[in-house]
């Protein structure tokens, strides 16, 4: 490839890169008004021992995925509050936070404890609601 063609290719890729970021911004849910909340599940999900449930969390379902399970739900309030609540909840419960990351519209807290590992995935789906997907893997 000639140098000119290489520069052109890099430029095109950078343009594509810019488009990717823009797509992400367009999809942000924090500005949307919330529709009615999903119904709570009947009963409680099966969670590891001492697993934290912060205030204002509603569980909506649990499904088995092979050896693991995924609990779904939501928390009233903004993403940042949910992120902080889970991090401090894990600390208080004696779990280890192995990794955590918060971006504009989504966040993850990975945990180890209660004979399990997994992740709490949070997405701010609308103005005042953060959806939750908790993956639990047995140890």
């Amino acid at each position, binding site marked *: 490839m000639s140098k000119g063609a290489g520069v052109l290719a890099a430029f095109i*890729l950078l343009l594509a*890169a810019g488009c990717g970021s823009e797509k992400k911004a367009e999809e942000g849910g924090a500005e949307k008004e919330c529709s009615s909340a999903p119904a709570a599940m009947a009963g409680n999900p099966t969670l590891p021992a001492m697993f934290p449930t912060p205030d204002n969390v509603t569980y909506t379902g649990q499904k088995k995925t092979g*050896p693991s399970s995924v609990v779904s739900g939501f928390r009233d309030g903004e993403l940042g509050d949910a992120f902080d609540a889970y991090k401090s909840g894990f600390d208080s419960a004696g779990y280890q936070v192995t990794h955590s990351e918060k971006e504009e519209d*989504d966040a993850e807290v990975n945990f180890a404890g209660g004979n399990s590992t997994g992740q709490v995935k949070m997405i701010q789906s609308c103005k005042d609601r953060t959806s939750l997907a908790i993956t639990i893997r047995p140890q």
Partner: protein
Amino acid sequence: MRAAATLALVLLALAAGCGGSGGGRGTITIVVDAPFSRSPYIGDTVANGVRLAADQLNAQGLSAAGKAYRIRVVRLDNALSPGRAVANTRNALRRHAVAIVTDGTGVDATWKLANQQHVPICITYQGGTGLVDPKTRPNVFRIAPTDHGLAFRLAEYMVPKRLKIALLTDDSDYGQEGKASLDDAFKTVSKSVVARITLPSNASDLAPQVLQARRSGATALLVWALPPVLAKTVVAARSAGWQVPLYATPTAEDPVLRQQLADHPSWLDGLTFASGRMTAELGSGPWSTFEAAYESAFGATFVGVKSQGKRVISPPDYAMYSYDCANLIAAAFQQASGTNAKKVLAALNQVSIHGANGDERGFNEVNHEGVVDDDVYFARFEDKIFRPVKDDPLSSTLPVINQVR
């Protein structure tokens, strides 16, 4: 003249070996210990990621405690031999390397040697569960999908499909580490497993093992093996006319698989494998920038086959991990204000960076894994290139990475 040139070279070598001590510009050395001769794809992948990070850091200027440094990258071939890896580690220590980046070969033996001098080892390919443990191996870090993550994600993906699964693992270290993780992942869903079969790496024909799987009633094969063994397994199944769904690990990405199946490219169609996601939640932008820089520096990695008339390339996904590792090492070096090995090692538990794909990378005192289990996705081959599957929640959100040039 020749003697003077030799003297100059010796002086340069001595200066380089001095690390950060003394005045002027210092040099820090990162040793890449990888299987360049036995598995050039993996070796070059690991080394090029480090090289790219070093070149960028050298270009933008690296300093610590007011002194300028440049990074030197030294490639040492371990030939997939733990013995060679030990020799390479001794060599790295003699060179006062600030860190060793490796595919993972021989780490069970090398970590102690390196730890005696507080030198960090960063694994960027192998995912064996026992390789990394912050409590017992404080100097070992990893940025690569773990076997635990691959095995659990494969079980989570396959078991709900109600498949009768034959687990095929080869007798290499890679295969045996995988076997341990598969046993762990499938222990609570063992009814889904109809056979556990070991594949001899040096066998020329794996028809007997594949026939054993077929007779067990398997409706899917999950193969955890080195690329040539995986290729022989595909050949054994398809040449017998058995269209059983095939599942595999990141070794399926290795060009060797597509090269060895070049005469029967359709045999690869439908093979699904687990690997680490290339792009992050942020979008494909950071990955594209990294990929462009990688190709600008080293050229594309051509697989040696064509798809719809265009040359197929292998995306530098694992190179991204060694790139991130080198950047973390540099960040730790800067936080430690120099080459004091103990301080650099301690700083690696504290620093974090934005990695090549935009994801935050970093370690802490309880976690030396840079890739979380939940970042494992699934891709399926079609006409010699792979695309994320649509029937997995994470994978279905990921973009298709262009793999032709």
